[in-house]
Structures are given as structure tokens and as C-alpha cells.
């Protein structure tokens, strides 16, 4: 059996390219704003459910950044799809990641239920904090923002505690 791994970027090449993208985005000759992601969830919710922007203060608040991230999101889906089909050749429909099968369970219902629940809580958490991995960690910490340091620290600790107790990692 060969052990050739999937065609992919090394962590350092990925990190360098991501920092260059951040610098391009934040520069005044680029977009003059940081990279973000999680704002798309309330923005899309407002769009799909046709919520009245005048009635919901939050939609007014995120109108500009939500639209910006909405366009970026379409690009992310496009870029991710093209790369998975033509470069890494990893596109395939799947319901359970192999790591979940190995360290949690093999139930599709369990994975999908947890996914829905985690997606729901994740957006509430990100919006409470005013950002996510992209907005706080990548963009915020690169600007040495104290808000990003607090968020990054709390997320790191909670992530490791949850990983320790949610999965069965003993004896593997």
C-alpha cells in the first residue's frame, strides 16, 4: 500500500499566503477592511426570511459588513469548489468525517444532530463576541487588538476542554 498523501499546501505556505491575503484585504489599495466570516449567518437569515431592516437594529448595524462578507462567501464557495475538484481532487459527498467515526461514533443521525446544534451555538457565540476565527483571531490578533487576545484565549481553552471530554481519545 502506498502512503502518498493528498496534494496539499504545507502549513507554512498556507500561513504565508493567508497573511498576504490579509495584508491585501486590509490595505487601502485593497478593501480597507479586515477579513471576516460569521456575519454572513445573521445577514443571510435576514435575506432568506426577508426581515425588516428598519425593525431589527442588528440588521441595520451589520448591513454593510454583512453584504461585503456575503459577496466574499460566494467567492469562498467557488474557490473551495474549484480547488477541491481540480487541485486536491478531494471533492466527494460525505455525511460523517472519518475522525468522527474513529473518535465519536458511526451514527449519521448523531453527527447531523450535533452539527446542526454546533452550527447554531457557534453563530450565537461568534456574534456575541463580535467575530470568529477570521475576524478576531486572524484579523484582530494581527492588529494586536486586546478583544482578539481575550477571545482567542477563551476559545483555545474551551476548545481543548471540549475536545478532551467530548471525544473518546483514550486507548487510541
Amino acid at each position, binding site marked *: 500500500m502506498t502512503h502518498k498523501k493528498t496534494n496539499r499546501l504545507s*502549513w507554512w505556505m*498556507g500561513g504565508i499566503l493567508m497573511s498576504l491575503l490579509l495584508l491585501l484585504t486590509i490595505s487601502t489599495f485593497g478593501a480597507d*477592511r479586515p477579513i471576516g466570516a460569521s456575519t454572513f449567518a445573521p445577514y*443571510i*437569515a435576514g435575506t432568506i426570511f426577508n426581515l425588516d431592516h428598519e425593525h431589527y437594529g442588528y440588521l441595520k448595524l451589520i448591513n454593510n459588513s454583512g453584504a461585503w462578507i456575503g459577496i466574499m462567501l460566494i467567492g469562498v464557495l467557488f474557490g473551495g469548489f474549484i480547488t477541491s475538484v481540480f487541485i486536491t481532487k478531494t471533492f466527494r459527498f460525505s455525511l460523517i468525517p472519518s475522525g468522527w467515526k474513529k473518535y465519536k461514533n458511526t451514527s449519521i443521525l448523531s453527527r447531523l444532530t450535533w452539527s446542526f446544534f454546533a452550527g447554531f451555538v457557534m453563530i450565537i457565540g461568534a*456574534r456575541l463576541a463580535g467575530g470568529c476565527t477570521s475576524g478576531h483571531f486572524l484579523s484582530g490578533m494581527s492588529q*494586536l487588538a486586546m478583544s482578539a487576545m481575550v477571545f482567542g484565549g477563551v476559545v483555545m481553552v474551551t476548545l*481543548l476542554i471540549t475536545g*478532551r471530554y467530548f471525544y473518546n481519545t483514550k486507548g487510541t
Partner: protein
Amino acid sequence: MNEIVFRTDGEGFLSRFFQMVQVVIDQDHGSVALVFLIGVIFGGIVQYSRVDKFEKIAGFAMLKDTIVPKMLFLAVGIGSIGIYFMVENGAANLHIKSLYLPGLILGGILFGASMAILGKCPGTGPVSIAEGRIDVLIAAIGGIFGGLVFTVFYDDIFKYLQGESFGKTILPNLFEGHEQTSVLVFGVVVILIAIFIPKLEMEDELEDHDALR
């Protein structure tokens, strides 16, 4: 290109999509094409480096994979030196988010726990959907409902949970007179952290062996 004005009246979903495009045209944060391109590159980097995989973020939560922190810290280290260099030379502005402790801590707890369970974040999740992961599509639907709940109850509940803002503080403010040095030290230390975190990788049987692919 900026002369195109989309029809924004009407109630259909399509007109709301055009409104979104129009809002991006009207704000001064790059052309629609540039914003789309930023997304394409972001999606490409994330997919090509495979950090959108469950085994990467959930794997880090289990301390069996360290590619995500290595890549993220490296990007932050280079990014911090680059951003402050550009700010000094008038090529960039800082965009600092407010420091409101209750919101950051409570939000961080909810975010960290759900990220460990889902194995994705809001930035890598869409890339996973684009490569065919149905479970993450379900998570996105959950996320949109999360966004709906947050929007609807923002004025009554979530705004108060966020608490008072301590302003848009940055770390160099704590080192008055040594601002530039503090940025440089921060950047170098974070890059060194990225390099010295031991490289661990959780294997994905479906992807890491040719014979099984």
C-alpha cells in the same frame, strides 16, 4: 462599473440579492470583483492546505493535530508586522473591535465548544460545504437559525449580554513609547510559536492513503 445601479425594489429573493451587491458597490471597501476574488483566494488557500477538514480543528481540540494553530499563528505573526508597517506608511488603517468582556468571554466559550464538536469555524465551514460535506451544510442551516435568533433577540437580550465596551484597545497602548518595538516583538514571538509547536497530524483514512482513495 460603479455606475450600474441594481433594481432594489420588489420583494423577491433575487432583488434582495441585488440589494446585497448594491450595498457592496456603495461602500468604499473594494469593487464587487475584488471582494469576490478575496473570497476565491481565501477558499482556495483553506481548501488547498486542507485545514477545513474535521480532522484539523477537532483534531487540534483532541491535541492530535497542530496544523491549524501552526498556520494561524504564522499568518498572525507575519500579518501583524506587515499591517503595522503599512499603517506607518499610510497604506492601511487599523480596524479594531471593541473590548466588551462579557460578550467576548461568553461568546468565546460557546464558540470554542461548538468549534470542537463541529470541527469547523465560520470561515472554513463554507469550504467544507463546497467540497461536498453534507454534515457541514446542516451545520450552516443551524448557523443561519442561530443568526436569526441573534437578530430577533439582539435588542432585548444579546445586546445586554455583551456588556459594556472598554474601548478599542490594542496591545501597543500598554507599552507607551515602545509601540513599534512591541509590535515587532509580538510578531517575532508569534512566528516562533508557530514554528516550535510540535507538528502533529491526525490521519484521515479516506484521504491520506492512495489505496483507499
